[in-house]
Structure formats: structure tokens, C-alpha cells
């Protein structure tokens, strides 16, 4: 394994930012440290870079323990959350900074900076100052600056947080493509699960300084291991006492579960209902347009649920009484999570029956 953390602990005063953190990342893959703010993800990233030192535990990069290696000797490129570009230096000087610190010969600096400017599509802008660039351009300069000394590991702290939503999508796929092209092992920090799922090969979910679960995006989505992950990944809603829902009678009376919109099917009003006796009565309380589909707010018994609804299905309006089918839920069992199917729909299988 290329990056390997084992038993990492770190406290700031009484605040414990990392508790027994361990995970591995294979060479050439893109890992995401995903978690809510304050979950310790940035601290972990900074410890890998050497900007913080762990109180206990080992950090290995390429098989070598780097705990006592100086940050600049770890071969790590770092993209800061707000890019931390040197505001009083031109784009060229920003990118050249690391090479100049290494006392690289002038001709080599010129060549390498030119290469990187071409790579990030910033040719002709090398005389600009960061203040004269757009958010996306700044990110590309930060990326080029981190890559200039040819690091073996690239770390990115919330690389898309400072960019407006419109450009963010483009930048995500741009970054993913760039990392694929360079085949550089990378780790980025994010609090946005959609971002992590879309971009990363491997996700490490952190919560309260602990690693909750690691796995591919699909694994995490399909098999959340803990209630936290079930809640955090997907547009999950948490229900208490879900045993009162039709088809889930086997649940404990105060049983908690997480349910995702795609687990619920809304039958268009007036159309014949399949599996009539497994269906649940619901009232439409809200409708919101979500581009390719509608988001339907539902009241089922005392529960408020959200489901998706195809624009191609029949008309639907607030106040309609509809039938819904709930296929499955993630039931919380202590610190574990179990996928529970609607027992009246057992013939439908286990859900997510696809392979990528």
C-alpha cells in the first residue's frame, strides 16, 4: 500500500482531532477523506503533509515511515483550501517557488513552469497576479504549483469549496482527468458526499476523529457499515419506530433506520397499484422540481418521507392521496447497520442489483 496510516492519534488541548485513525491507499488512486466539519479530516491530511505531527501512530508513504521526515522532504504536493497562492508573486513565480527553493537551474525552472502552465491551460497568463484570476484559474495555479516539484503524493484540502457551484462540476471532472493522466496518488478532503462519490476511487469516512468506514464509493453507498455512514451517504432520512410501516413488522418497536428516496416508489394517483397489500397510504405534502425529476414530500402515518418521482409519470399535486411502496431500509442495530427488505416484497431481491 502506498499511503498507510496506523493508529494515529492527535489532540489539540482537550479536543481530540484523530482517534486511532488507520487506513491504506493504493498507489495511483484518488482517495477522499469525507466527513462533516470538525470530524478530523483536515487534521489527518495535514499530518500526512507534515504540517502537524501525530501524538501517536505511524504514517508511511511508499513503504517508508515519514513521521520524522521534514515536510519539504516528504515529496508531498499540497493544495490549500483557499489555495494560499502567494499574492505578491506572479503566476510564474508562484509555480516556480518550489523549484527555486530546491535551487534548480534557471533553464530547468523555465522549462518545468512552461510545462505546467500548458498542463493546466494557463499559458499566456504567467505574468498575472492571483488577484487578477478567477476562482477556477486560481485553483489550477495552485494545482500546478503543488505539482511543480514532481511530488509523489498530492494532497488537496477542500479543493472545490471556494468555487461557485457552476464551475465546480467542470473542475471536478477536470481534476479527476488530470490525476488519471498523471497517475499520481492523491488524497482530497471534502464534506460533500456527492463530490467524494463522483470523484474518488476510495473514500475514507471520518466522524468525531474516527474512521467510520473505508471503501469504494459503491461499497459505501450500498453497504454502509455504521448508522453514521447510512445517514451521511445518500439523501438519507432517519425514521424512528419504522416497524409501524407495512412490511417491516419484524422491527423492534423503537427501531431506527435510514431510508433513501430511491427505496420508495410513488404510484401515480388513479393508476392500478402493483402489490396492493404491501402498499402504504401517503399524502403528498410538498413537490419540488429537481431538474430531471420531482422531489415529493410525503406524510405516511406519523413519518415524513421524501421520494423521487419521474416527470413522465402521471400528474401529481400537493394534497393527493397516493399509494407508495417502500422496498427496503437500513436498519440500525447498535453500531451496525443491516439492510432490511420489505417482507411482503421478498421476491424483489436485495436491492442495488447492478455491477459497475
Amino acid at each position, binding site marked *: 500500500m502506498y499511503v498507510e496510516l496506523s493508529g494515529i492519534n492527535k489532540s489539540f488541548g482537550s479536543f481530540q482531532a484523530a482517534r486511532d485513525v488507520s487506513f491504506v491507499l493504493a498507489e495511483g488512486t484518488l482517495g477522499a477523506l469525507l466527513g462533516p466539519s470538525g470530524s478530523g479530516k483536515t487534521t489527518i491530511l495535514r499530518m500526512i*503533509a*507534515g*504540517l502537524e505531527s501525530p501524538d501517536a501512530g505511524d504514517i508511511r508513504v511508499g513503504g517508508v515511515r515519514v513521521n520524522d521526515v521534514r*515536510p*519539504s*522532504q516528504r515529496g*508531498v504536493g*499540497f493544495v*490549500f*483550501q*483557499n489555495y*494560499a*497562492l*502567494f*499574492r*505578491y*508573486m506572479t503566476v510564474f513565480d508562484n509555480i516556480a*517557488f*518550489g523549484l527555486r*527553493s*530546491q535551487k534548480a537551474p534557471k533553464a530547468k525552472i523555465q522549462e518545468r513552469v512552461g510545462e505546467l502552465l500548458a498542463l493546466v491551460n494557463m499559458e499566456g497568463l504567467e505574468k498575472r*497576479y*492571483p*488577484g487578477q484570476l478567477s476562482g477556477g484559474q486560481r485553483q489550477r495555479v495552485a494545482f500546478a*504549483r503543488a505539482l511543480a*516539484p514532481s511530488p509523489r503524493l498530492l494532497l488537496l484540502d477542500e479543493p472545490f469549496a471556494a468555487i461557485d457551484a457552476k464551475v465546480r462540476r467542470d473542475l471536478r471532472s477536470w481534476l479527476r482527468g488530470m490525476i488519471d493522466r498523471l497517475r499520481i496518488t492523491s488524497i482530497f478532503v471534502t464534506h460533500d458526499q456527492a463530490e467524494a462519490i463522483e470523484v474518488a476511487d476510495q473514500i475514507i469516512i471520518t466522524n468525531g476523529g474516527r474512521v467510520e468506514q473505508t471503501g469504494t464509493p459503491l461499497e459505501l453507498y450500498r453497504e454502509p457499515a455504521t448508522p453514521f455512514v447510512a445517514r451521511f451517504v445518500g439523501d438519507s432520512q432517519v425514521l424512528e419506530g419504522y416497524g409501524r410501516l407495512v412490511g417491516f413488522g419484524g422491527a423492534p418497536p423503537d427501531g431506527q433506520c435510514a431510508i433513501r428516496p430511491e427505496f420508495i416508489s410513488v404510484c401515480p394517483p388513479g393508476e392500478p397499484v402493483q402489490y396492493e397489500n404491501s402498499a402504504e397510504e401517503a399524502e403528498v405534502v410538498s413537490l419540488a422540481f429537481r431538474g430531471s425529476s420531482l422531489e415529493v414530500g410525503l406524510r405516511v402515518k406519523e413519518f415524513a418521507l421524501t421520494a423521487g418521482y419521474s416527470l413522465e409519470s402521471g400528474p401529481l399535486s400537493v394534497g393527493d392521496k397516493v399509494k407508495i411502496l417502500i422496498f427496503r431500509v437500513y436498519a440500525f442495530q447498535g453500531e451496525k447497520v443491516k439492510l432490511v427488505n420489505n417482507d411482503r416484497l421478498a421476491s424483489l431481491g436485495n436491492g442495488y442489483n447492478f455491477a459497475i
Partner: protein
Amino acid sequence: MAYVREERGWARLILITVSFLFVALMLILPLAQVLSKAFEHGIKPFWEAVSDEYSVKAARLSALTAILAVLLNTFFGIAAAWAITRFAFRGKGFLITIIDIPFAVSPVIAGLVFVMTFGRLGWAYPFLQEHDLKIIFATPGLVLATIFVTLPFVAREIIPVLAARGTDEEEAAVLMGAGLWRTFWKVTLPHIRWALLYGIILCSARAMGEFGAVSVVSGHLRGKTNTLPLHIEILFREYHTLQSFSVATILVIVAILILIARHVVERVGRKEAEYYVR
């Protein structure tokens, strides 16, 4: 500030008039008085007073004290501001508070502090005697007293700038292998240069004009430990009014130059900030 414009006309007029009258009465008139008194009998007596042996010596001593105090306080100010904004350490709040002491304490006390330490009654006196060192009633005492009263100026100007900026640019520099020195010159200094210059200017102004603290440690040895402000006071007390006002003119001119410099620094700094920092 729309509501200011909507304010009734007379209120606006009165406030502006009062401000100008007050400034004219309290600042401009007395300063003009100094100049007019100095040149009462033309340029010749003025020049004689200013080029008098003791005046020149006092001016030199003032300049020397100011330069030394500003140099040391600049060094200290940068170090303290860096430490306060870049590191977490015990006693940080205490350090921030204590830097401001010279603002709160009367300069006379600043002078007395040094007299009590290095003077005849001070605990360090025997040691100084033994090594034939003289601090009180000598130039080192003047420099010490001036440093004391001007200590906060540089640090106070830089701390907010450094604090507002965060540490990530420096971290980026360190990660890319830059040493402390290179990081300071290339990354930190460009950010604080105008605030630093501004602090140095304020510090110089105060150092040149300091009277109270310096008066206590000076001993008023004419030609030896008299700075310009002290020299002016002595001339005045001895009824050499013309000479006194003439020498005072030097300080007034220095003050005006410092004001102009300050204004320029402020403007250029603001312009630059608009250009680079968005």
C-alpha cells in the same frame, strides 16, 4: 452614508465648522505661533539659534536615539507579531497586554523605572560601576527610555495584518522547501511592508518628540545628554524664547515631514492592497 446627507443642513454645517475651528484653535494656531516667533527677527537669529553648537549636538543625539530605538523596536515588533500570530503558546494574552503598557503608563514612570534599575539606587548599579558602564545620565539611558515609550508602535501595526491573513501561505512556502529566511522575505514581508513602514514612521515621530521619560534619565547635561525636546525646554526656561522657538521649528518641520510620509504610505499601501488582495 446616505443618512448623513439627509441630515439637516445646519447640523452638518455646525459640526464641520466646530471641527475646523477646534483644530485651528488647538493645533494650527499654536504651531503657527512657533513659526512666527522663530522668524520674528528674520532668518539670521533663527539660523544662529539652530546652528548653535548645543542645538546641533542635541539634534544629533535626538536622531541617534530615534534611529536606535526604531531599529530595535522594529526588530522586536516583527518578532513579537510573528510569535503572537503564528504560534500557540502559554502567556500569549499576557504578552499582547504587556506590549501595550507604554500606552497606558506615564512616560515619567518609564524614566523612573530605568533610574531605579540602573541609577545610583538601582540593583544593577554595583555591576555597572564595576565594569565602568554608564546608563543613567548617558546615551544608553536615553535610548532605553525611548525604546520603552515607543515599544508598541511597530508590533501594534503588524499584528492585525498578520492575524487577518492566516498562516497558509507560509505553510505552503515551508512545504515547498523554503527556509525561514526565504519565507519571511518572499512571503511574509510583502504582506506587512506597508504596515511595517507605517509603524516605523509612527515610532520615529514619537521617538523624536519624547520628552517625559527622556527627561528623567537625561540629567540635562548640555551637549551630552540633551535631546532636542530637552534642549528646547532649557532654552525656554532660561528666557531664550527666540532660540527656543527656533529650535522647536526643527521638530515641527520633522513632524510635518513625518505626516506627509505617513499619508503617502497609507495611500500607496491601500492602493496596493486593492490591487493584489481580492
